[in-house]
């Protein structure tokens, strides 16, 4: 308790810390938001709650890391991870997701959970369990007497995440496939009646999700570290963000992603880093309670 108070005191004593925490949080949150958006997409369009979301992220990270080991510049790794993961995602869709699309919630959860385990172990067998990271070798910018540090690599990562998000938004709004995806999300049966090939839409949505995750992972390996078994941490955060933001609400997902990034940093600072992830989960709980009470008020929930 005493430690919490003194940690809190530090925030007031050195106001600049707040700025640092917020910056760190935003840089981390931007990457969470990407994977979360992918999840919102498959959840909203296909009603599949993908527990392997984080493993797609780590998979993309390993693709990028492997390319750098082959001497390819790391930045090329981001588009390559995007494309390769789209391909892998498509294969996974054909083999695993399509046969269970019409099944109940439990089956899809079980299938994607199994997929998560298989992916983590495959990555472990292919690349070993060492913690890996790609050092871009860029400088770090320092502000306020070197107190605030912004590694250029991180800045670049956030920038790439932003470009990717923007690209996806534009794609969803203006392309034929994007419109078809949105139509399917609104009412799959009506979409079919109007001649939209929903199977193709599902396959595309799933691949797009894997691709977004892959690119996010490629960015993460450049600014953080990855390990074959880190998928679950990204999955948990993606679920928290989507639950908090709601489906089909891209600005909401981005805001929730950044918000969770910042809150986690604050939580880690005040309660100790051991509670960083607990903050995300507690937040999920609060959001769920709030949502439920809201729905009760308008009598949308069963008692």
């Amino acid at each position, binding site marked *: 308790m005493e430690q919490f108070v003194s940690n809190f005191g530090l925030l007031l004593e050195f106001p600049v810390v707040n700025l640092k925490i917020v910056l760190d949080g935003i840089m981390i949150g931007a990457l969470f938001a990407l994977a979360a958006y992918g999840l919102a997409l498959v959840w909203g369009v296909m009603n599949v709650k993908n527990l392997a979301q984080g493993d797609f992220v780590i998979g993309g990270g390993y693709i990028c890391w492997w390319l750098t080991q082959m001497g390819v510049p790391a930045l090329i790794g981001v588009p390559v991870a995007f494309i390769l993961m789209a391909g892998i995602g498509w294969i996974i869709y054909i083999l695993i997701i399509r046969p269970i699309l019409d099944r109940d919630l439990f089956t899809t959860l079980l299938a994607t959970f199994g997929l998560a385990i298989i992916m983590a172990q495959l990555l472990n067998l292919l690349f070993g369990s*060492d*913690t890996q990271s790609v050092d871009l070798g860029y400088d770090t910018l320092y502000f306020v007497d070197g107190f605030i540090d912004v590694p250029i690599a991180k800045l670049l990562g956030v920038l790439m995440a932003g470009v990717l998000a923007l690209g996806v938004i534009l794609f969803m709004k203006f392309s034929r496939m994007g419109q078809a995806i949105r139509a399917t999300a609104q009412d799959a049966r009506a979409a079919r009646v109007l001649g939209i090939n929903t199977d193709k839409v599902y396959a595309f949505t799933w691949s797009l999700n894997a691709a977004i995750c892959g690119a996010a992972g490629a960015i993460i390996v450049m600014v953080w*570290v990855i390990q074959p078994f880190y998928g679950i941490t990204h999955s948990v955060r993606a679920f928290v963000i989507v639950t908090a933001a709601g489906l089909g609400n891209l600005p909401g997902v981005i805001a929730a992603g950044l918000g969770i990034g910042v809150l986690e940093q604050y939580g880690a600072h005040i309660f100790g880093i*051991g509670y960083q992830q607990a903050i995300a989960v507690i937040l999920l709980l609060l959001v769920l309670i709030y949502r439920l009470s809201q729905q009760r008020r308008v009598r949308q929930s069963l008692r």
Partner: protein
Amino acid sequence: MRANLSVLGLVAGATMLLPGAASAACESITLGAAISLTGKYATNGIHTQNGYEFAIQKIKDAGGIKVDGKCYNFDVIYYDDESKGDRAATLAERLINQDKVQYMLGPYSSGMTKAIAPVTEKYKIPMIEAEGASRSLFNKGYKYLFAVLSTSEQYLASAIALAAEKAIASGKDPSSVKVAVAVENDPFSLDIRAGVLEDAKRFGMKAVIDEKLPRDLADMSAILTKVKLLKPDVLLVSGHSKGAATAVRQIDEQNVKVSMIGITHCEAADVTGKFGAAANDILCPTQWAETLTYEDPIFGTAENFNSEVKAKYDAYANRAVPYQLAQASAAIYVFKDAFERAGSLDKEAVRDAIAATDLKTFYGNVKFSDAGNNIAKPMVLRQIQDGKYNVVAPSDFASHQVNWPRG
């Protein structure tokens, strides 16, 4: 009679499992091991397995194990415990009950050893382990558990002594030294923390940061921000390989200046290979270093062991051979020595022979206390100097001066 039966069982089991693996002239002694080949401890689990296999091959090449005039070689039945304690305990039961293993090798990490020890104890199966350093393993009164390594509270405690030494040299009182500790929430790292805090208390030092790292750590910037605010003189981090990688990366990124930084598992995480100059002047505790002057007839000098491992396994060609591998080899060597002195394959006789071990090895001297921990070998502190690991403490073994203050 019982001993004879078990030998028969062992031989039969070994030949069934590994046809053709045993050399024609020698019979097999089967050891059992559940180690982490997948999961979060897999990096070090694989180092451990390599250590076992390297030693077994070396002993085979040197003519095997002579027990009562007969020649034997070791065979190991490995299972993957997936870095999960409950799985490790189940596999230990399986090794003993189904595979009829009479002697066990340890898993990787204190947590896994803690899970297995009650099982081996129940069936009175002697276990020599090389990777479980938690002192909580040695206060339970276990009779069949032996560890060749130094216990974990010693890992970073020497850094505290070194910090006190430096404080005095620069004309300050050791009690003015501020200590920051960040350790993972597992038995091994918590012991390290206990050892550090105990020593810090002895010098009257104050722990200004004392935090637990989460198990799946990818970000410790919150702690490092606090370090920048509170300006401790010593920063000590223990979080296995992933903790080391994260710490070195972020300490550099956030430009954290602390006079002395100590991190465990530097070698296992290959921080010099991954982060280059960012790892310089970091202190790394080690159970063993190839520059130490230990020697034995099977493996030769520590240096010789090092170069032979590098030649055999490509994975270590461009990096320091981790001590986790060396101590695994030492465990096999202790088993060999014990079998030969016991002159029998009876597990009780072997257990007593292990307890009486007084052996010089390339890894250091091995002599067990009644509790089963090795009391004949000190912990060593190395500093990364220009990408090389140089021994800087304790002074008896130091080949280089410590660079202080860092950065």
